[in-house]
């Protein structure tokens, strides 16, 4: 039990359950099938985006271009199907390849030049977004095959949409990657201390490029999922991803200096943010409050993490005196 309490995701889970009970007590509409459906859709889209950012946070960097990659892939995916009348599978593969290439560019330049990933991904953010606007001239693609539309709208069972399958699989794979594979552990080691990880023989080139490639792939999947959901490919997909992509991992207790991420806690962070946004809508609160709220939640999470660290420090000090 005491072990459980120390986990990042335990407190979050408690908040989610208590919060949901409280909200549905005041507004029973919160647990209506339709609301649950909307909630699950928003969770599944944000989950992929959050994972895409989380893996970069794990190696102690940041990726500002997540949204730009998602947008570029989204419009390429729909553009290939509409303009070149390609079938879904090859279009999807090319979309994934674009995401992979974008991530590779980010990782390669970052690790080869030693320039902060912040600056590199800021530059590539504008490059990818500029390509997106240059190609589409800010016009959306509307002609989406029915199979894609079906995947974005249909439900498996009750309120559960098909769209949740991929994000759940990705979350499980990410958990395995971060906790059960040497690559994931190397990434955390690299994020924790670059010098010592290099000294024990971890290739920083490999780690950084792998992390950015995975981030690019996840952003690509996120972009295509949004296309399924919206039933069209607009150039502004991904524009609003930046804040939520950092919010969930930070609320989930990831330390931005790198070396510590928790996949389950990040997923819970996504759920918490979605529930709160949804609750604010149900209570008919101005949508702009949602944004303010998200900002305050990040600050609150930061304070709580800081407080826990402080307590931990004090406890270890007491022990060392004994």
């Amino acid at each position, binding site marked *: 039990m005491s072990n459980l309490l120390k986990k990042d995701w335990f407190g979050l889970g408690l908040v989610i359950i208590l919060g949901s009970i409280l909200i549905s007590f005041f507004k029973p509409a919160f647990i209506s099938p339709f609301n649950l459906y909307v909630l699950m859709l928003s969770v599944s889209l944000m989950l992929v985006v959050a994972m895409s950012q989380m893996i970069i946070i794990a190696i102690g960097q940041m990726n500002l271009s997540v949204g730009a990659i998602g947008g570029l892939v989204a419009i390429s995916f729909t553009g290939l199907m509409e303009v070149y009348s390609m079938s879904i599978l090859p279009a999807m593969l090319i979309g994934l390849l674009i995401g992979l290439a974008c991530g590779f560019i980010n990782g390669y330049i970052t690790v080869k*030049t030693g320039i902060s990933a912040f600056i590199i991904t800021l530059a590539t953010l504008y490059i990818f977004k*500029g390509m997106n606007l240059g190609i589409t001239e800010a016009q959306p693609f509307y002609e989406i095959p029915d199979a894609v539309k079906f995947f974005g709208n249909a439900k498996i069972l009750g309120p559960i949409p098909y769209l949740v399958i991929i994000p759940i699989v990705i979350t499980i794979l990410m958990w395995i990657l971060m906790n059960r594979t040497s690559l994931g552990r190397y990434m955390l080691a690299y994020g924790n201390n670059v010098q010592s990880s290099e000294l024990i023989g971890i290739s920083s080139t490999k780690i950084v490029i792998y992390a950015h490639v995975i981030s690019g792939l996840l952003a690509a999947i996120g972009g295509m999922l949004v296309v399924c959901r919206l039933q069209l490919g607009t150039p502004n997909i991904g524009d609003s991803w930046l804040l939520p992509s950092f919010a969930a991992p930070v609320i989930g207790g990831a330390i931005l200096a790198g070396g510590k991420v928790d996949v389950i806690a990040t997923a819970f962070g996504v759920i918490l943010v979605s529930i709160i946004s949804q609750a604010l809508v149900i209570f008919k609160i101005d949508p702009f409050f949602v944004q303010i709220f998200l*900002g305050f939640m990040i600050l609150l999470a930061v304070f709580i993490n800081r407080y826990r660290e402080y307590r931990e420090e004090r406890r270890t000090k007491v022990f060392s005196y004994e």
Partner: protein
Amino acid sequence: MNFKIPNFVKTNQFGLLCLVIFFICIFSFSTDGFTSRFNIYALSRVVALDIMIGLAMMVVILTGGLNLSLGALGVSAAMFGGWCMESMGIPIPISIILVLAFGSFLGWINGFVTVRTGVHSFIVTLATMSIYFGFMTLLTEAEAFRKLPEIFTDFGSLKLFNKYISPLLIISVLTCFILYYVFKFTDIGRKLIAAGANPDAAELSGISVDRMFIYCHMLSGFLAALAGIMLTARIGAAIPSMAGHLGFDWLLPAFLAPVLGGTLLSGGKVTVFGTMLGAILVTLINNGLYLIDVGEFWVRFFLGMILLGAVLLDRAREYFTVKNSIVS
């Protein structure tokens, strides 16, 4: 070979100056309108703002941090100014002082939270960005202030020096000189740099690093508020969306100018005039790209490419100077 290259040539500023001259030559030869009086005036109005935004970011980069809330902060301050002047009827000079104080206060919040939690300012300002922008939109109900005093808006469209230069540019250049003086010759300026360069050493030599970091964030808020006022004067109205959603339109120029200017992202180094040159270069290229007619949608792409190219070039320059100094 005892030929000695002057130190100035090795600096980043010199490279930037060459680039600026190079692009001016290219654009004046390849386009008709570039050297026209109208275009130079338009350039001076845009450059003025970009310099100010760049400086606002530079003083936070000095601490090794970032200020993502810059645009949101600037717009919030500008809207506050619009409210003071239009709704409250407060005289212009007092309004401006109030706006600058308000901007500094918002900057203080950023600095205070960053210092107290020890969290990277990226996350703190990411949060405050959406808080400031959200509150601003709620309070103004996304309505613009369009009936500002005429003296104020006339100032923004004033033309000086044979109608070539906007007075806004003079404010920016003046700010550059003041900041240069502060960082170079005053006690507090040196302390700010010391705190950014090596916090531990600065703390041991009796500088309160926390306080210095808060000062940097306050200065950033002050400059962003000033940029907000300048933009309001330029447009002639205070509009909530004038820096884009969440103030994102300011972010690229804000990072481009100091980074091109040679400010280290790890902190501890400022280049006021480098930032100025960086801002000039970005505005030049932006303006030239529109005149060459690459299509407005590709401009972003090229700006991103230029940022990438510039940081790579700077890296190469550093590499070669280090190699040369080892050889000699």
